[in-house]
């Protein structure tokens, strides 16, 4: 059981007598900016995957460029 800021939450809850560890309403339901609540089962981080792969591609290409063009082409180098 992980309790983060539970006292704060219960004190804020409308039902002051509630002793339950879960707030009566989830945070998402109380937040006007949130359109819908997404649970772990329905959440697919496809966007994150896209970004991560994009980042990896950029890093690998830049690495090859830096290593074989900028560095290896920058003679004289320490050869021994």
């Amino acid at each position, binding site marked *: 059981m992980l309790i983060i800021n539970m006292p704060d939450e219960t004190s804020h809850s409308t039902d002051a007598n509630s002793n339950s560890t879960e707030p009566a309403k989830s945070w998402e339901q109380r*937040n006007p900016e949130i359109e819908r609540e997404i649970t772990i089962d329905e959440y697919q981080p496809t966007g994150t995957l896209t970004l991560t792969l994009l980042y990896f591609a950029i890093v690998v290409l830049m690495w090859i*460029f830096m290593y074989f063009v900028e560095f290896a*082409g920058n003679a004289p180098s320490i050869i021994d």
Partner: protein
Amino acid sequence: MTENHSNSDSDSRNSSKRLVKILVIVGIGIPVLVELMTLFNLINVQIFDDEEVQEQPEPVAEVRQVTEGDTLFRDYRFPVTIELLRINVSAQEWRFELGLSVPDSVDREPLEIELDSMQLNSGKILAAGRNRSWNIQEGHTPPRIQAEWELPNGDIPGTLYISSFQQMQNDTASRVQQEVPLGNIPVRYNRE
């Protein structure tokens, strides 16, 4: 923001939306542009322009800088040679040392040398201060003139203003000033 429950009218909402738009364009757009330009230039220069030899622009003709061994007042009867030019760094001090030598023929005619002032690389001007003038007369001639300045730590002299009062070719005495742009001054650590 989540904590903002104000019933702000649509005007202020719109203006704040516009602000965010501007911030995103300036604050994120320009950085992305800068990085893309860098990437483009790097690849362009390294991979596509390989054979092009970059023509170095001719360095602008600089004022010849004076270093140890050079001669001042070259066209006058008494040229002065810089024998020593260095900065000595010690525990708490940053000391500029200058040594000058004058030709032996000074024995016969009086010569006056005065260090007027000095401009440091930081822009500061140091006035000559005490004992910066030498009256070299017949008989008691020090062959060598030595002067020292304590400088602000880390500062290096850029230009020296030095004047000499001497007999000219036509037997009149006259004061001539020379501006001496100093070149590389060796800086050495000195352990006492």
